[in-house]
């Protein structure tokens, strides 16, 4: 659920709404606070409102309702060119008719920075992204990865305190993308700049961010550091969206403190941690990560409920085994086991019993 925005954030969205057509809200009641120096990622499926939020922050879209504040000042009425925010665009948006050096000089020239100062800054920015020798080239002569670096250098060259990035790595191949994720994170932390990063790639969000805001349906579903987001999702959307996830549906039959018992639709019972269910009798979706499922009884808590399962498929993936099970009528129940000498390799058709620690199994909204 959205947290209430506090006033001390460097970037603050305060009850922001956005509608393009005056009827449907693309962004519904957004409250978000980003601390100075923080790397925040807005993660969500397409159409979830994350890019709209970034565009409102950059000033290319206006908020229909609510305030956006930057360093304590409301910026709703400040045009984009006076906001002093750096931005890396999805397609890089390098000026094709200018050389790399001229591209980088552009933000400095419009700020009327002197020539010698300008050259020093451009050199520093290019060295920062290891593109020092490319000042005289034109964007069309660079590869995608190189253009990406230049776009980054151009967003940083005028030393903004806030940098926005709109899926900047989307067009790169996997290897380059992973390298750039690492470099961008380091650069952002070393320079101490605040970064708001938009992506639909959850791996990118988890590996790069201090905090991730998961967007869906125009709202923030959860705002948390990557580990909490993965291990303690607060609702079924977040659980499904981040990482791989198994779900089983049922009804809560017992709640005592921080554990509960859920009776699944086929009558079997299991132990879970109640997250956003509060009453006995509530419908619930329980969520469990594939790597937290145990079929070795010795590792389970005494008296824990277990479920019967039938092995449908066993896939050898090198470092892990991926096994597909039928559990309580669900044919897509996945478990992942680390490849170790003492681990049993399951065979299709085999009947096993599975279980888990209650804290790994979360009873969420239905």
């Amino acid at each position, binding site marked *: 659920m959205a947290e209430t925005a506090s006033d001390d954030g460097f970037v603050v969205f305060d009850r922001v709404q956005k509608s393009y057509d005056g009827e449907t809200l693309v962004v519904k009641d957004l409250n978000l606070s980003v601390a100075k120096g923080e790397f925040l990622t807005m993660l969500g499926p397409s159409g979830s409102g994350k890019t709209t939020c970034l565009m409102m922050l950059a000033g290319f879209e206006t908020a229909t309702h609510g305030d956006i504040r930057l360093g304590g000042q409301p910026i709703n009425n400040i045009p984009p*060119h006076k906001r002093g925010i750096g931005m890396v665009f999805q397609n890089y948006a390098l000026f094709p008719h200018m050389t790399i050096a001229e591209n980088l000089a552009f*933000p400095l020239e419009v700020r009327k920075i002197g020539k010698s100062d300008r050259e020093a800054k451009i050199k520093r920015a290019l060295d920062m992204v290891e593109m020092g020798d490319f000042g005289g080239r034109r964007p069309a*002569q660079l590869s995608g990865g190189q253009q990406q670096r230049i776009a980054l250098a151009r967003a940083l060259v005028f030393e903004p305190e806030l940098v926005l990035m709109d899926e900047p790595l989307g067009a790169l191949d996997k290897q380059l993308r992973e390298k750039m994720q690492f470099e961008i994170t380091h650069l952002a932390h070393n320079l101490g700049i605040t970064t708001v990063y938009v992506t639909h790639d959850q791996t990118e969000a988890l590996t790069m961010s201090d905090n991730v805001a998961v967007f869906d349906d125009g709202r923030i579903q959860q705002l948390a550091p990557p580990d909490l987001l993965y291990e303690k999702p607060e609702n079924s959307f977040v659980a499904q969206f981040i990482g791989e996830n198994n779900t089983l549906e049922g009804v809560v039959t017992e709640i005592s403190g921080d554990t509960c018992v859920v009776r699944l639709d086929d009558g079997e019972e299991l132990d879970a941690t109640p997250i956003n269910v509060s009453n006995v009798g509530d419908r619930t979706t329980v969520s469990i990560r594939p790597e937290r499922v145990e079929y070795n009884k010795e590792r389970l808590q005494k008296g824990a409920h277990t479920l019967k399962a039938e092995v449908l498929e066993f896939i050898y993936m090198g470092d892990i085994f991926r096994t597909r099970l039928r559990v309580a009528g669900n044919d897509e129940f996945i478990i992942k086991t680390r490849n170790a000498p003492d681990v049993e390799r399951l065979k299709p058709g085999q009947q096993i019993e599975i279980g888990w620690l209650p804290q790994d199994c979360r009873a969420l909204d239905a």
Partner: protein
Amino acid sequence: MALPPYASTGQRVWHYTFRVICGLIFFFLIAPIVVVIPLSFNSQDFFTFTKEMLSFDPAGYSLKHYRDFFGNPDWQDALWNSVKIAPAATLLSVSLGTLAAIGLSQPHVPARRAIMATLISPMIVPLIISAAGMYFFYSRIGLAGTYWGVVLAHAALGIPFVIITVTATLVGFDRSLTRAAANMGADPVTTFFRVQMPLILPGVISGALFAFITSFDEVVVVIFVGSAKQQTLPWQMFTGLREQISPTILAVATILVVISIALLTTVELLRRRSERLRGMSPG
């Protein structure tokens, strides 16, 4: 394109018929222009090839019609009028047409299609109707028979060309470039001149060329809207045809053709050079 070995008889027949049709079209388009050029060197005051010309006798050729063009004050006044009117009309067409194209490419502008259709209408409405309308309208507001009247009328004729060529280049224009410029602190005017204008320049130049040639060639509107003081080259040629029937017209036509070809070639070379410099096309 060579015929593939498996072509049927029908395809073979069509293959050659197609070439003949293309040849005929080119002949139809170019022959009248090509014929004018040797005729303009006629030593007689005729519009036909004389016996001497056909037998390539040097006595059959002369530059007298060119001398007449450069020596005759009527022709020189007309040339001067054209040279004064066309660039002014072009400048006006380009400025207004470019702005209109940019404005009309914004998705939020209401009634874009209707506005576009209105602005392009001078190209579609029969010229004589535009000319008559302009004549009545300009007479009312005192523009008829003035230099600025003719310039405005020609600009109105040139604007559609500029709008069409600039709109075409804007289709490929990436809007995130202007956003990037704004984001880096450039105000809208700086963004326009430093980012958008250089990138749509090829379209602007082609539009300017069309607008210039429209004005330079135009005879109907200038006869209606202009007065004797604005007698342009085409007007003078028109009167020449009716009243003097002098081959000087052919000399003028040849000069105009040469100017047009030179203009088109220069602009095309400049455009290619700038594109190469901008790295937008492989060198």
